[in-house]
């Protein structure tokens, strides 16, 4: 009964939405963006919007990301640590991890720094750096790396990055200051913030004792 009702309901929703599509095409003209991108010193239309004309949205988005990570931290912390995760015995994996780490970092920095010219930007760069870091950490033994990247130092760095980003962003909006240097700075800051966020969260998910 409930199943049938649910499916009927969703089918209705699907029908309405598909009906709406019939009237949707062709969409409105694309507004010329090249001028605006040039004004911000960007070669990438998307980057010029994300970091330029709609920078304020991006600042709020960074806050959303940071706060969700804060939430994850406060939710998982009371659960306590998981017992020492298994570390692979073979040295090859560990050595590969040592070689891969700089490659991943360089790639992430490249993505962040060239985000205003081509595809890329701070968020994907941070995601790649953060998850790469954790993968390697798992290969090397997570406890070792998390001792080195201590939360006591990461937390001020994270909040500091956000504060700098907020102040810089709002000032650039207010003073109408533009330029590709600013975009690179934003992307790098966002990259740092997302890297820290992703690392901390993945690390929490990996090492905190949840169920069982």
């Amino acid at each position, binding site marked *: 009964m409930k199943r049938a009702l649910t499916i009927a309901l969703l089918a209705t929703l699907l029908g309405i939405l598909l009906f709406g599509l019939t009237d949707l095409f062709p969409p409105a003209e694309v507004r010329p963006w090249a001028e605006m991108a040039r004004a911000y010193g960007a070669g*990438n239309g998307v980057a010029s919007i994300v970091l330029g004309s709609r920078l304020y949205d991006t600042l709020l988005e960074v806050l959303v990301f940071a706060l*969700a990570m804060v939430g994850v931290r406060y939710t998982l912390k009371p659960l306590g640590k998981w017992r020492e995760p298994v570390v692979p015995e073979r040295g090859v994996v560990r050595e590969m991890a040592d070689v891969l780490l700089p490659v991943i970092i360089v790639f992430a920095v490249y993505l962040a720094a060239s985000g205003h010219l081509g595809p890329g930007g701070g968020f994907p760069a941070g995601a790649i750096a953060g998850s790469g870091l954790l993968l390697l950490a798992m290969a090397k033994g997570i406890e070792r790396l998390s001792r080195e990247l201590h939360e006591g130092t990461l937390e001020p760095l994270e909040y500091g990055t956000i504060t700098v980003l907020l102040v810089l962003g709002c000032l650039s909006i207010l003073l109408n200051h533009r330029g590709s240097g600013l975009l690179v700075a934003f992307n790098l800051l966002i990259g740092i913030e997302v890297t820290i966020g992703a690392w901390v969260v993945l690390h929490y998910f990996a090492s905190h004792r949840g169920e069982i």
Partner: protein
Amino acid sequence: MAAQIGTVLGIGLVFLGFGALLLRRSLIWKLLGLNVASSGAIVFLVALSHRPGAVPPLSGYPEGTPSADPLPQALVLTAIVIHFATLALSLAYAISLTERFHTQETERIEAASEEEMER
């Protein structure tokens, strides 16, 4: 044509995701459904940015070639991050709840948490 296909796919994914959200009983599966539904909304927006024969919104293409609309793509970049953030938070909540009640069935979790509140 590509844009139409994309929009239909987006709406289809929303449908699938909501279906899983409503019909599955396990919490983690519900969250997986929510994830699919939100990726559907993203596909929908990306498809709307496309124009026939369009190139990516990057400079360096010859003058006069039609380009895709950068704005929906910019929105989508934001939306992807937001969806990830809420997903991570909800998974953390799910872990914390399963830790306490040792089940993932939403009905049982709900009943158990009501019971806990009465105490």
